[in-house]
């Protein structure tokens, strides 16, 4: 299945991708800025995400609350999200409201700062600090997504620190930071605009040129430090966290080939063999057969620089000790590393992934987001059309080579959450190469 794709670039550097589909009278507008938490300076963790919130607080022609209100009144949906290496903003609107969505995005790309006030910043700081409490601090296991990257990336690496940010760094964020970040990163030459759905390809160019064309390009962006990392951690890493939980849960993160590389697809298939749906090894072995675990899954971060992460996430049954859980998950990794996978397992993984790829192309919003993704990371949105093929090309030998190289004990960072009362016991039973395994 191929989706149609056109691209063009404005004189100010804005890269635009288009994908027509007239099935329904709706259109998605999706803007990726190539900036994320990795670009934050020391003492400002969480700033990229706080900044994302500020982009919904109005701009020169848009009063506070009006950004949401205009889109909502037009019958559209909208949101934004921040990731380690990018931030996105998106709307899906009835197709006769396309120009409104483009105008809103252009107005905040070009004219955000006049609308910024201390009061808005203070309120959104409170909102974001409550988001941190809600998603992490008051959530069982919630700190995993702050702790895991910290285990796998060295302290000097841009992916090491917290995306949501520390409370004190959030407290320190100022209007000057807003102005500096905006001027540096929120420029047309650091963005990709994707439009998918029901539009006229000639009219849409005029609209994009009209609203985004006058925005000047940015200056030089500060270079990120060297992202390169060794392909493995160089030895087992382990952290035990006592938490307000009843069931133990383990995350095991492994450095894996970056998204887009040939080896990435083999890694992704290895992850699917281990933890995608009920036919996966972790579900079959630990949930169904041995009944040690209540839930099991695997996923990748899909990072394109330095190293990607392949993560296993397994939650214990109440009667399973954290030690049993940890040993069982590592044993599955030992087995795949030593013995490899079968052709049937690879075929199952590819078929499931392929169906998911199709399913995810159904909505205009998802299409536009994928176009922006491939355009931002690789400069080539048409890569969206070859993903299924990339997966189908993967061989058993490639998966086995990945497993041999990357799934050994020297490349495993284990983050183990244990009920508080069991915590002391767990941390005293350190796993060693010669001991437990």
């Amino acid at each position, binding site marked *: *299945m191929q989706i149609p794709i056109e691209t063009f*670039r404005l004189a100010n550097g804005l*890269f635009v991708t288009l994908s027509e589909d007239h099935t*329904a*009278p*709706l259109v998605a507008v999706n803007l990726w800025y190539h900036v994320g938490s990795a670009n934050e300076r020391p003492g400002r963790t969480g700033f990229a995400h706080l900044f994302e919130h500020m982009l919904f607080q109005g*701009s020169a022609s848009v009063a506070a*609350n009006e950004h*949401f209100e*205009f889109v*909502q*009144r037009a*019958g*559209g*949906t909208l949101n934004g999200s921040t990731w380690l290496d990018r931030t996105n903003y998106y709307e*899906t*609107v*009835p*197709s*006769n409201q396309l120009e*409104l969505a483009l105008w809103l995005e252009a107005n905040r790309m070009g004219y955000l700062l006049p609308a910024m006030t201390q009061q808005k910043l*203070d*309120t959104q700081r409170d*909102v974001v*600090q*409550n*988001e941190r*409490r*809600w998603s992490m601090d008051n*959530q*069982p296991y919630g700190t995993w997504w702050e702790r895991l990257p910290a285990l796998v990336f060295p302290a000097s690496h841009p992916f090491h620190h917290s995306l949501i940010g520390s409370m004190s760094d959030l407290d320190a964020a100022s209007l000057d930071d807003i102005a500096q970040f905006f*001027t540096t990163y929120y420029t047309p*030459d650091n963005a990709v605009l994707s439009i998918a759905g029901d539009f006229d390809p000639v009219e849409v160019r005029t*609209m994009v040129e*009209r*609203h985004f064309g006058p925005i*000047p*390009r940015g*200056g*030089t962006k500060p270079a990120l430090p060297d992202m390169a990392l060794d392909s493995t951690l160089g030895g087992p890493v382990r952290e035990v966290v006592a938490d307000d*939980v*009843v*069931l133990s849960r383990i995350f095991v993160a492994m450095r894996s080939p970056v998204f887009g590389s040939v080896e990435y697809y083999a890694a992704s298939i290895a992850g699917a063999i281990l933890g995608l*749906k*009920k036919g996966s090894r972790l579900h*079959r072995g630990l949930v*169904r057969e041995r009944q040690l675990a*209540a839930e099991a899954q695997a996923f990748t971060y899909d990072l394109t620089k330095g190293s990607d992460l392949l993560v296993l996430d397994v939650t214990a*049954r109440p009667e399973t000790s954290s030690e049993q859980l940890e040993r069982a998950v590592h044993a599955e990794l030992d087995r795949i590393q030593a013995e490899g996978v079968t052709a049937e397992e690879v*075929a*199952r993984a590819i*078929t*499931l992934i392929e169906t998911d790829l*199709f*399913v995810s*192309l*159904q*909505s205009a919003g998802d299409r536009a987001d994928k176009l922006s993704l491939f*355009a931002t990371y690789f*400069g080539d949105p048409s890569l969206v059309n070859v993903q299924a093929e990339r997966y189908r090309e993967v061989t058993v030998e490639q998966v086995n080579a990945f497993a041999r190289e990357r799934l050994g004990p020297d490349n495993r960072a284990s983050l183990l959450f244990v009920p508080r009362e069991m915590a002391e016991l767990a941390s005293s039973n350190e796993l060693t190469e010669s001991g437990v395994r």
Partner: protein
Amino acid sequence: MTDASTSESTSARATVSAPTPRPGPTAPRSYSFPRFERMTLSNGMRLVVAPVAKLPLVTVSAVVDAGAAAEREGEEGVASLTAQLLLEGAAGLDGAALADRFERIGAAADAHADWDAATISLTALTDRLPEALSLVRDLLRAPEFPEREVVRLKDERLAEILRLRAEPGALADEQFDRATYSPTARYAWPAGGTAASVRALTRDLIRTFYSQHYQPGATTLVFAGDVTVGDAVALAESLFGDWSGEALRDVPRPFDTAPRTGVVRVVGKADAPQSEIRVGHVGLPRKHPDYFDAMVMNAILGGLFSSRINLNLREAHGYTYGAFSAFEWRRAAGPFTIHTAVKSDVTGAAVREILKEIDGLRAAEVSNDELTLATSYLDGVFPIRYETTAAIATALSNLVIHGLPDSYYDEYRERVRGVTPGGVLRAARQHLHPDELRIVVVGDPTVISTPLAEATGAPVEVVNPDGVETTA
């Protein structure tokens, strides 16, 4: 990315020209909810088929009148367990083999029961549909309920109950239901059952529940996607045409939605950095004649990002990451609930603002501007809701579950646009009950009990996660 254009590079933004003016909409293009046809096989099994040939994908859902509302007293959780166990052994294949068969064709199946129905659904590439549906036939017609899997899924449900207990938001939801409905009411307890009711379930009870409810006359097969009506009917006829049996007709017990008496309850969580707040009461059944007025009223109160409650608690006060309200639309009267999580030290203030917003909506008509913000959103977003085969199948399943007319989705937008400020005010006055509100907060009792008592003027009861009262 590198830039290949030749325009001059400017380093400052000082030279930006004036912003472009806000454009208006162009003429809207018409939209219709996908056309669908309904048929009944000779054995009473019904079909709903919506051919949508956008991508080579089909979603199939088998909707069975076998939800938690069909359970007998003392068997809470049997509906959910029965649905899940369909995937754990059928027609001579064990659960692992079934998972393998589905996943090898890329069509992982989901089976679950909620309040009003059990649903087995999957999305498959079009050319895999016959194989996928023949597996669905095996699940529906020849499940085996192996004893080992019965025990395992019971244990997994018990583990889930423990996991949810540790999540402040889930705990608040559970305790809110218990505070809202009388203990005799099914809705007071989770659809998946309690630890005690799940422990008591047996293979025999599950088999009995299956044979009473999983029958052709109680089942509708919904197709949405790249399939013709003719192909869908032929496939259904060949796989299900010879399925016979009668579903249990009598309702096992009158469905009780009796409310509890009012209460402000704190579920203690020492040192909690945030309070999970639930405020509400028994709401309305799905087929209530005021459905559209009540839905739009809720959108204005707390249903949308730009609702009164969210703009107040989040955007004006910064108390929370988000606050919203919802009617849970079930066949019988489900709860109406306002949900939010706020920093502990503003718990009393947040509840006071919530109560103020409820009173405000009951006091005076909303402006036309505020009304149309909600109605034009609900009207405009309608096509966006049905972009995927799975979303269309869910919408058609809801027609079946709630007995809505075939014209329902064609009339939806007009009904929304027809809601008036007077209708919203009537709905607020008739269906929001300030004197019947239950307030449940999971948080630190030492920080929030006194502010909650002050905000509500009511005594505050402090309970542990089991709902047992502790010293206040």
